[in-house]
């Protein structure tokens, strides 16, 4: 497996970007604060710890048992909203590349189909647009991080046991997920609740909690494509 490499007009002259292939191999994706309400229309939103820092990241869950994105089938991302980190998963900011970009050659969006990144040796407008979008999504994720840090500081996060009962009697547990602790939220003093509300931090918590109902959507998508079927999803 190779890591990201700087975007280069010669080495990547024929490379194309296909947005319809985005996120095919992703089981979850980080989302930014502004995406929360949109992503909740399709996906359960929860928290998972970052492997390097241990801090909680806001994520959209897109898989259950199989290591595959349940929303990607039939040649596209079958959801009302595609998280931007999934769309841009093939790109990183990198000072040494064209338009300040590096690419992950293993990402499914990069290949022989889709929009060209270069024409006649010069960058098309696409790399510039991607650079702008990437900068925005990073800032948006930082805003989400600040919100989640605030929840963590107030001890408003709890572990989210998620257990799947499989047809035939098997069981599959998803570990490492966290969610808003609604009981702890209710127990907050009035002043702390008002402060959260004034900081626009209450509504996102409610959206996150409500989005867990989308695990049923994931169950249906799983059962349409994979066996054994998931009979029931149990959230602790």
């Amino acid at each position, binding site marked *: 497996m190779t890591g990201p490499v700087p975007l280069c007009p010669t080495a990547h002259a024929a490379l194309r970007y296909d947005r319809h292939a985005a996120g095919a191999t992703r089981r979850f994706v980080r989302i930014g604060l502004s995406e929360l309400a949109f992503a909740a229309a399709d996906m359960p939103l929860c928290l998972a710890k970052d492997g390097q820092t*241990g801090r909680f990241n806001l994520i959209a869950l897109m898989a259950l048992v199989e290591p595959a994105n349940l929303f990607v089938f039939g040649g596209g991302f079958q959801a009302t909203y595609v998280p931007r980190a999934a769309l841009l998963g093939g790109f990183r900011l990198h000072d040494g590349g064209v338009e300040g970009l590096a690419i992950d050659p293993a990402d499914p969006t990069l290949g022989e189909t889709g929009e060209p990144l270069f024409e006649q040796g010069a960058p098309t407008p696409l790399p510039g647009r991607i650079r702008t979008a990437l900068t925005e999504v990073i800032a948006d994720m930082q805003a989400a991080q600040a919100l989640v840090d605030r929840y963590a500081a107030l001890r408003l996060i709890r572990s989210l046991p998620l257990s799947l009962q499989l047809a035939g009697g098997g069981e599959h547990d998803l570990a490492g997920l966290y969610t808003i602790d609604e009981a702890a939220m209710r127990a907050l003093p009035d002043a702390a609740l008002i402060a959260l509300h004034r900081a626009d931090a209450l509504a996102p918590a409610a959206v996150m909690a409500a989005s867990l109902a989308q695990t049923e959507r994931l169950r249906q998508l799983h059962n349409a494509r994979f066996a054994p079927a998931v009979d029931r999803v149990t959230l602790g």
Partner: protein
Amino acid sequence: MSDRTGAGDRPVRRVVVVGGGSAGWIAACRLAASAGRTGGDVAVTLVESRNVPTIGVGEGTWPTMRNTLAKIGITETDFIRSCDAAFKQGARFVGWTDGTPGDAYYHPLNPPAGATEIDMAPHWLHGREKGAGDFADWVDYQAMLCDAGLAPKSIVMPEYAGHANYAYHLDAGKFATLLRDHGVGVLGVEHVLGDVATPRMTDHGDIAALELADGRVVEGDFFVDCTGFAALLIGGVYEVPFRRCGDILFADRAMALQLPYESEDDAITCHTVATAQDAGWIWDIGLWTRRGIGHVYSSAHISDDAAEAALRRYAGPGGDALNVRRITIDAGHRTRFWQNNCVAVGLSAGFIEPLEASALMLIETSMDAIADRLPRTRAAMDVMARQFNATFTHHWMRIIEFLKLHYVLTRRTDTEFWRDNVAAASIPDGLRERLELWRHHSPGPQDFDHAREVFSWPSYQYILHGMGFASAYPRVDPASPDAATAQRFAARNARAKDELRARAPRHRDVLRAIREHGLQRV
């Protein structure tokens, strides 16, 4: 029942801890936290001399420390940051069996696989010819983690939890400071700086108060003697005899030095290394900022100068300019630990070479027994004292026997120290009897008197089989259900090794992440 104290049902409301090292501050914090948790009206005061330096022994803990810190209310992040702490996953004993190159074995902190279901030892013994390898490696994955320098937890795990059992290496001085700040600032311990001059006694032999050198008087209902080797109360006031064990464990001196890392990215060893020497052994522990190394030795078998030379050889050129700190070990313990309304905790209760890092563990175990069951009245104290004394006399006997086990199994005959260690007169009867039993039966829970032994059968198995103790357990039928169960656990252990080898982080990387980002709390 007669009330020989004359104190009747006087409630225990004022607890006075005397001494401010690790023992004193662990005691004060545990008592104050326990009182706070139960809503009790117990006030805790710690009296500490400005003029008595702390010994600072005990830079290695047991996994029990995770519970102790959680009970006190100190986060693992704060602990690791404040005490330069690193993780410890057990001990590796080098050169203890025959002293030849490659002679080494692990005593990991994980119990053997399937410990609650099956005794793996006979299956390992009869599987050796089929390549079962070292006992610790066959029954558990922690030796692999230690060898590979991998941590027992990752940054995404909760506080005090890991993918392997673990303890800590820590800076004892910084630990006492952290406990003091937490005890005074968070738990409400009253901190009195002053030298104890005279105890004031009741007519019935209890301590009523301590008069300090500056004339102040600290009154109390219950006193915890954490005054270290001075043993001001248990020895000075009550003259409780000290039972020495130098005839069993010969080490009576130690010298230590603190060795900086050569670079800030040097690997931090994730276990204690205990390397046998001509007349003792050298400990080597890794902290975040430095290594701590020390030579424990018998002055009857080697001179101080020769011992220091051995320590400096071990340290290498990096230790040439460093001063060694010398410690006298008067190995043994009090014949009673709790007398009247006074209990001794820490070095005042006893001291022994740190071969299995028992010093801090004994403080914690003592405070588990005291803080969680603090007598409500003076009348209840004598019953508690009898229980406590019986329990800790037993613990000390077992600790002495377990440390001696490391010496009696040696096949080394190269120095008088090792030859003397296997002399029959130096081996406690209880240990000798068990060793005879264990030639034919693997150590198991039924071999011990107490339900909660400080060293239980898994520890004995690791040492016995690590040192190649000659055992002849009944042959196991390879077609039996037990054999299948043992193979299943061995296979599970092999899978765990593969998985952790691939995903467990480097020890220093995890410590760096914790210091930088902290462990998230939920």
